[in-house]
């Protein structure tokens, strides 16, 4: 569906000088500075995949999505979306993709939602039968009929995003870009959008690229995750894989019958003590939880125990941090 090879994007920006005189001088002779937003990235996405695309702000996510949409021309490298080069055949490409940008709406602000949808029907030349079928689907999955006659400016954020989703999918795109589609939405509405995203991916085989800062979105929705930082892809793989690779660490939480002295268990480090509870960190490839538990129970009687896996958020933070540390050492 998507093939990206050695994609790079440089922005050329006028370097501003400080102060009033500086800005006057900028008018006449401008220095340019180049910033590399996307730096030699390559990846492939197969039809029907649901990929989480994450990275800190300014990592290059939006820039790369814009290039996939064909509204930004790459500095170098190759992109193919379903066989098309997006920036060369922008119009043809737009017919096969849909996009929702959480921060902007493509609906007409002052008119009822349904009127905006009718306009999109005419713009994309959606056949009447398909239009009706899709509206029924949206009513069923998004409860669109609850607010379809309300002007967009009077909608709640959750409703507006639902309407935007409907607008993006009206022409049955093969590929859907969701750029922070759930930003600022409450928990219930979020859950509902997640279910909807999963359903259209499963039932209609729409390939989806989802950008988000919420790791719960990724955990609940995506099967694959790509992490971009400083314009480079620092991780690309399945969720299980990322856990296996970065989540070697487990924590054993033990509650003893009575307060006990701090002690160290083999292959595990005591990280925290709180009353009768103690936390032991261990690498699950060096020791198994059962060996550790056996060792501890042989010393003291215990009330309760639990093994904690690291949160995906924690892992991602480690990856971001790890990457910037290696970058720092590179520059040294």
């Amino acid at each position, binding site marked *: 569906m998507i093939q990206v090879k050695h994609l790079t994007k440089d*922005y*050329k*920006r006028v370097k501003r000088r400080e102060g009033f005189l500086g800005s006057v001088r900028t008018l006449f002779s401008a220095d340019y500075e180049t910033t590399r937003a996307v730096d030699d990235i390559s990846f492939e996405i197969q039809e029907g995949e649901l990929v989480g695309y994450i990275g800190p702000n300014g990592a290059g996510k939006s*820039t790369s999505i*814009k290039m996939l*949409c064909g*509204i*930004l*021309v790459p500095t170098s490298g190759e992109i193919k979306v379903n066989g098309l080069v997006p*920036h060369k055949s*922008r*119009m*043809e490409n*737009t*017919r096969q*993709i849909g*996009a929702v*940008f959480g921060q*902007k709406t*493509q609906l*007409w602000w*002052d*008119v*009822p939602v349904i*009127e*905006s949808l*009718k*306009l999109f029907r*005419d*713009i*994309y030349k959606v056949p009447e039968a398909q239009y009706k079928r899709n509206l029924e689907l949206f009513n069923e999955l998004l409860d669109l009929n609850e607010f379809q006659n309300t*002007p967009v*400016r009077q909608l709640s954020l959750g409703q507006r995003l639902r309407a935007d989703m409907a607008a993006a999918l009206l022409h049955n795109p093969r590929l859907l870009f969701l750029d922070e589609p759930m930003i600022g939405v409450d928990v219930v509405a979020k859950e509902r959008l997640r279910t909807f995203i999963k359903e259209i991916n499963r039932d209609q085989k729409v390939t989806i690229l989802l950008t988000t800062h919420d790791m719960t979105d990724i955990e609940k929705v995506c099967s694959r995750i790509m992490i971009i930082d400083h314009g480079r892809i620092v991780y690309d793989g399945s969720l299980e894989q990322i856990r296996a690779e970065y989540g070697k660490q487990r924590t054993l939480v033990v509650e003893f019958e009575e307060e006990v002295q701090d002690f160290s268990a083999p292959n595990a480090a005591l990280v925290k003590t709180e009353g009768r509870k103690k936390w032991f960190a261990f690498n699950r490839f060096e020791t198994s939880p059962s060996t550790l538990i056996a060792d501890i129970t042989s010393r003291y009687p215990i009330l309760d125990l639990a093994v904690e896996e690291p949160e995906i958020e924690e892992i991602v933070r480690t990856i971001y941090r790890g990457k910037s540390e290696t970058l720092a050492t590179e520059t040294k």
Partner: protein
Amino acid sequence: MKLFWAFARQNFHAVAAYRFDFFLRASSILVLMYGIRWLWITLYTQRPGAFGVSLGQMVTYGVLSMAISNLFFTGPPYYMAQQVRTGAIDLDLLKPLDFHFHMLARSTGEMLFRVLVLALPGMLVGYVLFDLQLPADSKTGLLFVVALFLGYLVSFHLDFLLGTLALVTLEIHSIDWAFHATSRFFSGQFIPLWLFPGVVGTVANVLPFRSIFFIPLSIYTGALSGRDIGQAINFQLLWLFILWILSRWMWGRVQARIVSQGG
């Protein structure tokens, strides 16, 4: 064509949201029609025969001019500047529509809507209350409609060019004000161009603005007739052609800039 109606339909729904704006426009048309009629009557009693046409023709020119005044300059510059400022221009570029055509459809939709709710009722009121005469014959009426539509297209392209400029400068209020004041003056909205003296008259005759109010109104009132009508319409077509080429070229450059620099 379907798309033009689709945009017109949107405007019907939007007007419900901006009823106040609508009533303000409608009532200002009434006041202006009343005012211009009264002005010409006064001027004609002072100096009869000084204005080249009969009082009836002149009042028709003025009143009709006010009735159709909302059909021109239906707003792409503001839309375009706003889209760039908010970054929503990306969403416009994501549509399978040529941007120039998209703006034309949007603007024409608005124009058609205004024909129905402002211009036609305005003309009716003008006919009943303010001595707006009917055109001499149906052929004149038809030529007026043709010239009016061409005038609209010229105004749209001037607006579109202003809009592409707005994409570069991002600030358009002052340019917009200056541009529209000038264009309304040179288009003969208030004073027919034959009353412009010397150099100003010559300049007004060459500029494209004449296509907008002056040519259709002159055809309607009979100030232009016979071969002059054909010439005037050719003048409109020529300017339309030039402005169309210019619009395509300018937009091509602006779009190239957007897609290389990310808005």
